Every structure is written in C-alpha cells, then in structure tokens.
C-alpha cells in the first residue's frame, strides 16, 4: 500500500487548485488521481473563452485556464496519475484505484480531497416519449465530439434546456455550419448565465423558447425531428401547442449532477439539495479528513469560483494534516424563502477567517432584500437588483460576526421584499 499525506481524486480545476494550495501550505506527499489521460478535466473540451475573468482578470479559453494550473502542478513534485480510475474510498481513507500501467493500487492517505466533478442529466431521467433513434445526446457529449474528436454530431439541431453547456453548444454548432433551430427551456427563465444568452443565442439569432419542452422524438434510426410544446405553470405540456421541428440532433442541457458515487459508497453524508457532500467552512465533509470542492460539492457556473472554493479545501486539508484544524462547536446554515441551499452547511465558531456563503435561488427575484439572520436578529442585509437560478450568489460573513453567534444556533439566508 502506498502512503500519502493527501490524495486528490480528480485532476480538473478543483483537484489541481486544492493540491496546489495544500502544497503552498507545506504539505509534502500529494498525489492527484485523474481518470482522463490528461489533467484539466472538462475544461479541456471547453475551447470557448470566458474563463478567468474573476481569478486572473483576463479572458481565457478552458484549456488555457486549465493549462496555467497544469503547468504549476508539473512544476512541483506533486505526483500525478492520469488514466487512473478510483474504484473505492474506504471508511478509513484508503483509496483503491486502477490503471493499465500500475494495475490495482491502494493508497492510504491522511486526508482526501474529493474533486470528481459532475455529470449531465441524461434523456432517460426526463421520460421524453418517442423513438430511441441516434442523434439524442447531452450537450457535453456533443461538445466532446466537436472539440476533442473533431466530428460534427449533427447538422440540424434542437437543444432542450438552456444550461450553459447547451447555450455554448448552440453557438459552437452554428460556427461549425450547423443550423440550430431552437433552444427550448421548460422553465419561464433560462438556467444559464445572462452573458451566454446574449453571446451565444441573441448574437446568432437563435430563438430561446421559454416554458417550452420536447414532448416527442421522431425517427427510427437517426433522429428526424422533435415535437415541442408549451407548458403551463405546472410545467405540463399544453394540448394544442405542439409543433413539429425537423432536426437530426437533439442536445440536452437539462442539469448537472455531482458525481458522488464514491462519496456515497464511503458513507459520506450528502446534502439533499446540492447532491454534494455536506461540508464545513473548510469544505470538510462529515467524514473526518475527507474534503470536497468544485462541482462534486455544488454545481458551479464559473470555474473561477471553483478555484477559490478548492483553495479553501486545500488549505483545510493542509490544516487537518498538520493537526491545526479546529474542532469545536458548529453553527448551521440554511436557506429560506427561495434560497435553495447554502454551502458550507456548517461553520466552526472558532474558525480563523471570514466565511463566504454560496447559494442559489429557486426562481428569478428582482429588487429584493437579501438578509442573513440568526433567529430573529438580522446579522446583515443588502439590496439585490436581480438574482436568477442560473447564477450562483455569495455573501460574506465576518469573522467577528461568526464568533458572536450563540452556540447551537443556525444562520438563515433569506429573500425579503425590499
């Protein structure tokens, strides 16, 4: 069995940032285990720009953003195993993995960072009626065919779901000469970033149809068309609004699910809303010494925030390894009135820094007041012009405030009328 201070599972932006931060904090024996054949994660297929505006203050493509971290990792002696799949994490932090060079390996790690990312919701989860023709795929799979393999996955396209990958692919397919006939979104608002709606749809004249869904797929072998219909306020298709759109490809961008199969098998408690582990302010899960960051913890829309979050996890793991991480009383966090969840789910009262709470809202809010409360007491509040489910929000809680919270209390983030 191999022995490391820190094993990082996943070599995407989250895993790399966590490993680098832990190294910066003085941790020596670190290994990154990555299932793909290179570091970089999903960024490798995100060849569009828009990455790094917050973190680097410049606009980079996905591979460029990843590349900066890959270089840093290889400039250190952090060990990297690519093409390596982690099969199991045991309750006593033993990681079992395999690849075609080392065979089966087991690694005993003092701390583990989970950075496995997320996957796309597939068609089956949607129960769209109709045929099982080819040409129905998630937007991410299509993106891989175009950007990595160099093949066109379709010529006439309808996209269901207006998540960011769907919006990006609408533009990408158009640039490659395909005709994107519509982007249909079940909800009355888009699930993607506003900038992507403008730059990927509006700039190319691609219609975004809100409160609209695909009710049927047609075609025996390759897809030949889809029937779309408008939906009512209960999201049920309205009879009589059906419209047939001929197309050879249906791309799905209907949500991302953190990849927590390993976490579940290890008995790590997950948050019902985020589908990621429940963590403290240093992103430590309820399983001692196991940390989580990036899309495996909560689905992000900006990689810059992934990096920041992962640095927090890396720092936390380093503190844990050095025996410096505080164990004490926690206060809980919760969302209310349209605030769907809060990460972190708990904060140590004896923590040593300000803590940013990250969250998403469940619907579009305009001109509201965002308040943080402890019991009836308003700790802080600020006005918000607009909040949408597609954009992750955050609010900073000062260290002094945290220290002043009564033991056993809960902080609530809530939306109120301005």
């Amino acid at each position, binding site marked *: 069995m191999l022995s490391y201070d820190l094993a990082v599972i996943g070599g995407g932006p989250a895993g790399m940032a966590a490993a680098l931060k832990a190294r910066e904090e003085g941790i020596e024996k670190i290994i990154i285990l990555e299932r793909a054949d290179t570091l970089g994660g999903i960024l490798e297929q995100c060849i569009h720009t828009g990455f790094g505006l917050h973190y680097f203050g410049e606009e980079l493509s996905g591979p460029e953003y990843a590349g900066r971290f890959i270089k840093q990792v290889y400039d250190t002696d952090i060990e990297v195993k690519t093409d390596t799949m982690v*099969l199991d994490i045991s309750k006593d932090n033993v990681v079992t993995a395999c690849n*075609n060079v080392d065979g089966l390996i087991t690694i005993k790690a003092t701390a583990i960072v989970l950075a496995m990312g997320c996957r796309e919701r597939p068609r089956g989860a949607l129960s769209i009626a109709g045929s099982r023709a080819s040409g129905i795929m998630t937007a991410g799979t299509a993106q891989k065919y175009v950007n990595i393999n160099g093949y066109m996955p379709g010529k006439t396209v309808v996209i269901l779901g207006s998540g960011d990958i769907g919006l990006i692919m609408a533009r990408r397919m158009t640039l490659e000469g395909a005709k994107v006939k519509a982007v249909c979104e079940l909800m009355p608002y888009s699930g993607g970033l506003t900038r992507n709606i403008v730059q990927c749809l509006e700039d190319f004249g691609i219609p975004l149809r809100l409160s609209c869904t695909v009710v049927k797929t047609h075609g025996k*072998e390759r897809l030949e068309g889809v029937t779309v219909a408008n939906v009512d306020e209960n999201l049920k298709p309205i009879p009589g609004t059906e419209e047939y759109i001929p197309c050879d490809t249906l791309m799905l961008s209907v949500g991302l699910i953190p990849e927590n199969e390993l976490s579940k098998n290890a008995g790590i408690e997950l948050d019902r809303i985020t589908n990621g582990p429940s963590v403290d302010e240093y992103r430590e899960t309820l399983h001692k010494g196991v940390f989580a960051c990036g899309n495996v913890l909560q689905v992000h829309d900006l990689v810059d925030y992934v990096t920041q979050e992962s640095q927090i996890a890396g720092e936390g793991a380093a503190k844990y390894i050095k025996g410096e991480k505080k164990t004490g009383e926690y206060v809980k966090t919760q969302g209310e009135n349209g605030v769907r969840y809060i990460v972190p789910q708990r904060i140590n009262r004896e923590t040593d820094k300000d803590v940013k709470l990250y969250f998403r809202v469940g619907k579009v809010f305009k001109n509201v007041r965002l308040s943080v409360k402890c019991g009836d007491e308003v700790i802080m509040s600020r006005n918000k012009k607009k909040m949408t489910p597609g954009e992750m929000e955050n609010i900073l809680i000062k260290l002094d405030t945290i220290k002043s919270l009564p033991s056993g209390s809960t902080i609530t983030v809530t939306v109120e009328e301005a």
Partner: protein
Amino acid sequence: MKYDVAVIGGGVVGALICKELSKYDVKIALVEKCNDVAMGTTKANSAIVHGGFDAMPGTLKAKLNVEGTRIMPSLCGDLNVPYRNNGSLVLAFSDEEVEHIKVLYDRGVKNGVPDLEIISKEKVKELEPNVSDEVKAALLSNSAGIVCPYELTIAAAEVAVTNGVEFIRNCEVKAISEQGGVYELETSTGKIEARYVINAAGNHSDEIAAMIGDDSIELVARKGEYYLLDKSYGSLANHTIFQCPNKMGKGVLVTPTVDGNILIGPSASDENEKDNTDTTPEGLEFVLSKAFKSVPSINIRGAITSFAGVRAHPVTDDFIIGYSDKSDRFINCAGIESPGLSAAPAIARYVESLLIEKLSPEIKKDYAATRKAPVRFRHMNEQQRRELIKKNPAYGRIICRCETITEGEILDAIHAPAGARDVDGVKRRTRAGMGRCQGGFCSSKVVEILAKELGKDMNEITKFGGNSKIIFERTK
C-alpha cells in the same frame, strides 16, 4: 451460399434454436435483418422466467413455459448468463382477485408448475415489505425467476457460432422461392440457399410464412412500455410482483433485474405498426399509475430510462410452432409472446426434435455446449482484479465509470463470436453506457474503440446499425 438449415430471426428463439442445432453435423445460417442479435422483442420485455400458471392447460404456451422454466437455470449455468430464482407473486387486492389467484393456482397445478402457494397478507408483507397495505393475499410461485434476455441470446449465438453456425447480419429476407427441394432466400445481402427454413422472425413471422404461401399466421403487434429505475432503488422488490392478469396480458409488474435495477411495466396497446417502439406519455403514465398500486413507494425520480417493446400476439392466443401446412421443410415459430422468453429453451428443443426427425444428422464430436464466463471486472474482488490487470492491462482501463466496465471487456465483446458491431451491441454485452449517466461519458470512447478494432472511421460507427449514425463528417 448453401445451407442445410436457415434460421430466420436472431431473437432469443432463433439463437437458442441455432445453439441446439449446432451440436449436429449440419450447415446452419442464422439470418438476421439487424446489425446484431436480440434486436426485436428480445431486447425489450419484462425479462421474466414465469412459473407457468397463466396459460390454459393443454396449450403449447403452458407446456413449453413450464418446461422452459425448468431448463432455464441449468441452461444459464452452461452459458454463464445471469439468472436468479427470485420467485414471483401475483397480488390480490379484492375478494374477487383472491378468487382469481385460486383459479391461477389450480391452473398452475394442472400445468405441472411446482412449488405454488397461496400466501396471506402477513406473509406477503414479510416477503416484500414495500408492497401496498391494500394487498389481501398473493399467489407465490417459487420456481419463477429473472434472466437477462439479450445476454441469453448473445450467449446462445456465441455458442452457435463457435460450433460453426454462420451468423449473417443486416440480412433481411425479401422473398422465398423453392426449386428442387431447396429454398432460395432472396435477401438484402444476396441469395441464400437452404433445404430447411425455420421461421423465428418475431413480429414479422407472418410475413415470412406468407412468402411460401402460408397465410395461416395472424398476429397483432402489442406494444409494452417500461421504466427502468436506478440500482439505488434495487431493494424496492425482491420477488417479481404481478397484479391479477387481464385480457391484454399479465398486467404491470414490478421486478428486480439480474443487474440490480428495478423494472416496471409493461403497458399493453395494440399497434398498426409492427416496429413502432416509440414510448408514449400515456403508456408511461399508465405503467407508473399501475406500479404505484403494487408498490406505493416507487419514485419516478429514480428512472434512468424508459423503453418500449412490441410483442407478437397470436389471435389464437397460443404459440404457433411446427411445420407449415404448406411445406414439410419449413418450420414456423410464431406468436411467441409472453411467456416466450421463459419457454424459449423448450421451444428450441422442440424445434430441434421436429427437425431431427427428418434430418437424422450425426452429433459433432467437438461440440462445445458451454460458454466461458465473460470477464466481469465489477463483480471481482481486489485480488482477482489485481491478477486480471497483470495478465492484460486493458482490464485496468475503466471506460464506463457508472458501471465500472473496462476496455478489456469492451474488446472482448467486439471480438467474441457474433460480437458487437455498434454502440448498443457493446452496451448489451458489457453494460457500458447502461448506468446512471446513460453513456454520457463513455459513448464517445466506445465509438473510438469500435472504430479502431473494426478498422473504420469513427463516423462509420452506428448506435444500432442501419442509418443510426452517431456523428457526421469532420468539423471545418
């Protein structure tokens, strides 16, 4: 090409017939219109090995069901196909239905079904805690089980091909003529000559029979829709849970699969179009509402896919198996609806006996009746995995992360006798792409591997043959 026997249709019936006949010194062709075996009713059904109490005594259905269910465990052992003797329950929700399960019990006894019991509500709840509290009693059939229908078919085809049967894909029979005691099959890939023809063409067996002037087979295409739930819901049911049957069939069931998922369905609707496997909102809604009645805690959030299959319902309500009235060298196996899968091993032996009477062939000395167990990395312990990867590093590369399927297993599936030629073929043989992400991550890798192994360009690889292409030309 000239053959002694041409078997038309590579479903579970055709493949098992080929497997049985391949022990003799006869030249056999398995003629299949699709790109793989198990592409019709075989791949989309309830995957159940029925006890055998449904069919009326004296029918072929009754006889071959009970016999097939008896043979199934040892056959699956020989072929290394997953089979589980999980038993089945028919739930009764009213006094009337309690009477009905007694009728089924008596019928089962007449049909020769072993180990039937009528059990109380308490016993039902003890066996299946998730069954509705509304249940009054149930018929327990201990001999019933579950099997993977396409894996059974694939394994049978592998054994058949290993023993010399020629598997001809993408070969649709268009017309049949006869000259001097030899049938000539005009197909989409050329002419095939055969002395004997076995018609196992599923929903199209009426058309195949009509090609020799036999218009006696009347079939109705009956569609059934299903939901498949994620493995995390696998503990919802242990037995196969039926409701009382009706005139359209055995009703909606809730059953575990041999792979640990939960399957619910089927609906039953008669269709004009034989190959219409489209799912419908109504059909899926129906399945769900009926399944709730048996197991109220079913959660549709667990659905990872839905699908439909079309079964060939014979208007006579019984299997049609035997020599055609028009020819003593043409055997029909038609109208093989439920319990067709359960009966298939017995159907194959029955057809074997019909043919052997006429052909009296020698048995091959080197007949290999068993299939070696395919490598299943996911079922291995650490030590076995370690040794496996040491022997062949391709087993150390995980391609499908949801189901933990290795590159080595995919290579095996492609290079097996009657091996996979498309993405769905790899999926049925290995489970790559069958997990919760439904191929989101691995399908492009599977396309790459298929292209490399088959010496093709990636854009020539299909989902399931024909025009089911996955990608088009190169990007600009």
